[in-house]
């Protein structure tokens, strides 16, 4: 019997050396660091507001959200995603290529992943040389701490 191989395309990126991804269809675009307007009184992971061609984008730091220390350099990238009529920019360290993964390589979140991150991920794709963590965008964009 032949196994049917279904594949998904992911947008991969790196945060603090680890590989993460979100479905490529969720990504509107990827932009360079932008001028930020601080939002006083907001959660610490809200980095500020960006003007994206006349649209207001709320920038969220994934490092801050995952309780990691902030990157030292300004050399980050913004992944623009939209959710519920609002636009968000997820700041990540580095953007990787679009990765094609087989559904069969997916596995639920391993127990060993740190508590602070586990709530935001759906699972892990096991590739030959590395693991790619699939983020749960809905959870990231709807948490209210």
């Amino acid at each position, binding site marked *: 019997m032949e196994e049917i191989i279904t594949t998904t395309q992911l947008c991969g990126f790196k945060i603090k050396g680890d590989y993460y991804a979100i479905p490529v269809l969720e990504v509107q675009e990827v932009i360079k660091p932008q001028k930020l*307007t601080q*939002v*006083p*009184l907001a*959660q610490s992971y809200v980095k500020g*507001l960006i003007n994206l061609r006349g649209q207001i984008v*709320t920038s*969220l730091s994934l490092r801050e959200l995952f309780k990691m220390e902030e990157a030292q350099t300004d050399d980050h990238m913004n992944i623009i995603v939209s959710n519920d009529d*609002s636009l968000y920019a997820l700041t990540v360290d580095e953007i990787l290529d679009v990765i094609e993964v087989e559904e069969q390589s997916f596995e639920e979140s391993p127990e060993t992943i740190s508590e602070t991150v586990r709530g935001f991920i759906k699972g892990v794709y096991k590739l030959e040389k590395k693991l790619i963590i699939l983020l749960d965008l809905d959870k990231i*964009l709807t948490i209210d701490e």
Partner: protein
Amino acid sequence: MVDLSSPIVKEFLIESFDNLNNINSELTQYESAPHDIELLNAIFRKVHTLKGSASFLGLKLLQDITHQGENILDHLRESKLTLNSDMVDALLESFDACISILRTIEENGNEGNENYESLIKKLEQLSDPSFSKEVKLDSPDEEIVLGEELPLLEKDSSLEFIKNLDSKAKQIPKESNSDEKDSLENELLNLLEMNESQEKSADGQPSEETIKSVDVKVPDRERSNKDVFEKYKNKAPKNEKRVTEATKSTGNLVDTVVRVNVSLLDKIMNVVGELVLNRNQILQFANQDSSSELNRLAHSLNTITTELQTDIMTTRMQPVGSVLTKFERVVRDLAKAQKKNIKLFIEGKDTELDKTLLEAIRDPLTHLIRNAVDHGIEKPKARLAANKSETAVINIRSYHEGGQVTIEIVDDGNGINPDVILKKAIEKKVVSGDGTNLSKKQIINLIFAPGFSTADEVTNISGRGVGMDVVKSNIEKIGGTVEVDSTVGEGTTFKLKIPLTLAIVPALVVHSSSETFAIPQVNLMELVRIEEEDDDKEIELIHDSEFFRLRGDLIPVFRLSECLAIQRQERKKKDLNIVVLKAEGFIYGLVVDHIHDTEEIVVKPLSRKLKDITVFGGATIMGDGTVSLIIDGLGFYNYMSGYQGRKSFNSNDTIREVNTGPAYNDEVLLCRLGDDRQYGIPLSIVHRLEEFVYKDVEWSGQQALIRYRDKAMPLINLEQTLKLSGDSLLSKKSDEKLVLPVVVVRARGTQVGIIVSEISDIAINTSEISVETVDRDGFLGSAYINEKSVTILDLYSILDMQDFIKKLSSEDKGKVLIVEDSELFLKVQEESFKDAGFKVLTAKNGKEGLEKYSNDLLAIVSDIEMPVMDGWDFVKNIRERDKNIPIIAISTLVTKRYEEILKSGFDLCFDKQNSAKAIQAVRELKS
């Protein structure tokens, strides 16, 4: 005759032409597909709408034709008739007739003189199901002629119809089958219904008699028909509009009007918003550039964009009248149900408002109007008893004001009684405590609190405890405000301020710690600038909160950068910019670093993640392309007052723990002297706080003097006078540039400066001053302020120790009784009255006051809040003994309960800051 300039007529014409344009093709379509019920319904609806509008506007001819058409269509719907080509022809003919009548109306404002009798008759016959059963009837010509001869009734179709029915009834053989009877009865019912609805639209009055006569039974038909007929004759149509000079309309309305989907308008509006932003950016860019060509282009872009923006906004504008006129009916029905006489006046129906906003204010307005009728207006008897006219008046006014639309609802009912509101509020636990700290305005505003209703009896109209809070939140949702003002016995005014449009608002741009914020002009009242060298204006402290005196009113002041936790700046005196804002009737100041220009900003919503931060109403993109947050005046105030509320709640708790007696409210200036200890000076005698440079001090023998406001003012070395350890700054002669903090005090008829090492704070002393610890002159006692023991200085005795004070001649101007529970304030008052040459008796509460009362007193000065016996009881007791003695109240309650104080027997009242005025008043009594 209709008024062609009326927007309703225009709308009617546009709609009718539109409907009739399609109806021909629809009818022919239906003819080829007679099973398409939907299509038939659509045609029926159009004719029905046209009939309804025509009857509303009093267009009889049009109404007659459409009525017959409608009848045919109705029978078709109920399958009483089957469509045949005769019907289609007749219907099409009737539609053509309608169009030609509408054209005439468009040109002349009247229906024209064309005779459509034969058409109507044809339609009538066709619409009669019995007719198709070959029940022939002679057309009663005479009666139609009769109808024409009755100008009052016009050619009322109902009349003809009844006549027709009559004649038919006569002709129907006794043994005619029951079907026919039924159909006749149906028709009669139809007719009655129609007439009823016509009635309603004509004068808004459902006719009870009409409804009753629906019960008419077939055997009595002849007579009852006559009855109905008589009734209509009496109720000759009132809906005939006053004939106004028909204004010649220019061109064909249909050709000049296009119906546009609102969502498309919304989209265009958004794009224009973007364009406005873009223009702002280009303008800013052009200003930096010296190229004249760019400047010129930017300028013309500016003009064009502004014009486009205004035009687009105009397309969405609709007169508020379309909502307001509905209230005529609402008020009428409610008033009738409640047996109240109410006249409603509506002004400014033409004021225009954005369509979405208009929709949004409909429900809140309805609620306010219902409330006015239900709660506000009294029953006629009560009105007569209160010397008011039996007929109440409700005024609805709408007008433009300051870039907003204001809608006022004014009734002359019994007003809102703050006492009742407060009682209810306490009962319902809307406020905690006894609410004595609330001003009248705050109390009235409690009606907007969730879960609040005051109607003693819950009626089916209002008073279920939901409502006003919803009204408020709905209005605020669209960026508007609601204000309420009420005088007991005279009426209530609600003032709604609605922004013209949602998307683009004028806003003030401010800077605070290098961040830019926009403040919508809706909330903006004024801008105040305090210069560093400005002596008269400054920010004052009460506890840790800052206040500013705006023309005598104390308003809370917040520092934007501190509140938003951007950066804590030093609160030292420098040039300050205060933006005075108004939200929900509360006025407060916002200290910002810089104030820029006003700008038209496009409000963009914040993402859901940030929606919880109520301080911000959205974000916008500024001319330079950066994003700025928009400060929501109300959200900010709520955030800050919530924050302050928590703070004061805590401090209240500590008061209760420390002191079970009444709280004292003595403001004390805290300062530090050479021995590094804290001393307090009663703030009521402090005139100003100043700083002098050491080298400006002049010496006259041992006495230090300073030139102050063109006078030599003696400076007091407290350390020396009071023989304290440590040296006064005055004794340190080392540094010429040394700055001396000086407390300027007015007492004993002179002005002196007291040199202190440091002025630390102003605090409120809530504890009792213990006098036991006093071991020498110059001290009043010690108090426990901010968890520290502070020695309170007795400045009068200190002054008495000074050589330059001339001992006042002990002239006797009369005896004054001072009743005051605060030791400190009693002392201050006693000394100031003594200074003024009065003899003073003192008492610490009302009971002591009564004991010390004698009939040789010149006047009594009393506090109100006191232990044992308070001022209210005291004044009552005194008045029983002596009706004429002047009694002056000095209390912190004055601002809140001024009238109450004067009613209770006091002749005058002053707040504690103005106690000097009491002396002035007593002095005037004397002379």
